[in-house]
């Protein structure tokens, strides 16, 4: 019988396979541990579809009158919170992002400090920031706007810093070589290369902030959240439905606006 040399083919190297199995195993362990220790009453789980359906039924038909009278005003306030917050973010995140960039700032201490601020900013949820600022400024839209700002700084600043670090050195060196002042180096060398990314990130963050602003009122920081909270607390489900419809419409409009602006500006 002829002898055929068996040729081996393995899809992953032994090390790759070990690591992949490690991840799968860890996931399985985490999953089963979480499943066992979480305090969920099985009866509630079984009841879920019926209960959800019941709630949805109570929301129909939508209370349009409520929409027009109360919701629209609050929704406009929500948009203001999101927009002002994003604008303020751009003002603050810009210098912080620049300070965090390896190729612009030499001192590691300064960069670390800037990066720390950015990480802290985005590790705290905007709702938690809102809790803080309601305690500081009192309830209302001011707390909400500042909360949005503080949360967004980390997001925009980090992306700006990364974009700056990826800038092609050539055009920058050329401008430095002719002895231009630093302002020009930045404006003509760095800025044109990061401008599209920066604007894109700003628009994206505004879009996210519109959605975030809609819930800040739940902790008293202004916007539609307050209206929603009140309606839920008195079980006015049809009014709640009106609020949800308004939020959905505004979120959709924001997305459309962002897509439109993206094409025109970038």
């Amino acid at each position, binding site marked *: 019988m002829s002898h*055929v040399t*068996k*040729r081996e*083919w393995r*899809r992953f190297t032994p090390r790759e396979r070990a690591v992949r199995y490690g991840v799968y195993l860890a996931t399985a362990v985490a999953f089963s541990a979480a499943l066992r220790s979480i305090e969920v009453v099985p009866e509630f789980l079984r009841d879920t579809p019926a209960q959800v359906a019941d709630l949805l039924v109570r929301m129909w038909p939508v209370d349009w009158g409520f929409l027009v009278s109360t919701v629209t005003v609050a929704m406009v306030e929500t948009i203001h919170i999101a927009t002002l917050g994003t604008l303020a973010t751009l003002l603050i995140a810009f210098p912080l992002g620049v300070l965090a960039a390896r190729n612009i700032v030499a001192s590691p201490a300064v960069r670390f400090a800037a990066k720390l601020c950015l990480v802290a900013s985005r590790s705290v949820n905007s709702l938690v920031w809102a809790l803080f600022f309601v305690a500081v400024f009192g309830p209302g839209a001011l707390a909400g706007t500042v909360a949005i700002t503080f949360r967004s700084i980390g997001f925009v600043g980090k992306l700006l810093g990364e974009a700056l670090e990826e800038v092609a050195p050539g055009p920058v060196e050329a401008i430095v070589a002719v002895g231009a002042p630093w302002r020009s180096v930045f404006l003509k060398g760095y800025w044109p290369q990061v401008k599209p990314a920066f604007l894109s990130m700003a628009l994206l963050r505004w879009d996210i902030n519109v959605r975030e602003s809609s819930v800040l009122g739940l902790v008293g920081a202004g916007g539609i959240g307050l209206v929603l909270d009140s309606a839920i607390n008195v079980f006015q489900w049809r009014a709640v439905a009106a609020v949800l419809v308004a939020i959905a419409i505004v979120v959709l409009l924001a997305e459309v606006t962002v897509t439109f602006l993206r094409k025109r500006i970038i």
Partner: protein
Amino acid sequence: MGGVTLEVQDLTKCYTADRPVLRGVSLRLDSEGITIVIGPSGAGKSTLLRCINRLVEPTSGRILFQGTDLVTLRGQMLRERRRRIGMVFQEFNLVERLSVIENLLSGRLGYVSPWRAWLRKFPETDIVRAFELLDQLGLSEFAAKRADALSGGQRQRVGIGRALMQEPELLLADEPTSSLDPKTSVEIMETMASLARQRHIPVMVNMHDVNLAKRFADRIVGMTEGRVVFDGKADDLTTDELSTIYGGEEWMR
């Protein structure tokens, strides 16, 4: 040996009602040999090939492959016949993120269950055959490389290998050399011709390079405007015939 592998009867294909791409094409393909279909763009060569393995749906006509009319098949039955027809594509159509060996083995996908495909547990005989083919194609050192790391000619060789892994009874090639430079085109045709002859598989190729066709074809089929206007040996292809197929003589000088 004798026996007809493929018989196309009166095949018609219309994409829109008033513009048929194929007008009643009839052909017989015998057991072995290389048949090359030539003709200008829009003549329907590619459509003809793709109707045979039903990547394109014929409007009417019959396609008898080893006695069964392919046009009437669907689902599992169609896939079973498709397994026996290998195809090589103009743009190679390899799965770029997968390795060369995985691309070869994908020729056997008609024979493995989804679970085995997911885990890449192909039968041992398939893997052995894949490595042998790699040797014959001169690509042994590329076995574990990603398909998009290869050059055009190398990719087409993998494409030929994939088709041959199916152990087909018919090999179709849709403009296999149109994306390659002249030297590589000849190499690819030589590879395809020798491997197919070795395995006694009839080959049907379409291309628009007439000289390349004359060099490799046992039989040439000329098409124009959805009709077969020439069917014979390469030597019988005179300039008159060519101008019937392509129109005009300027390009022949």
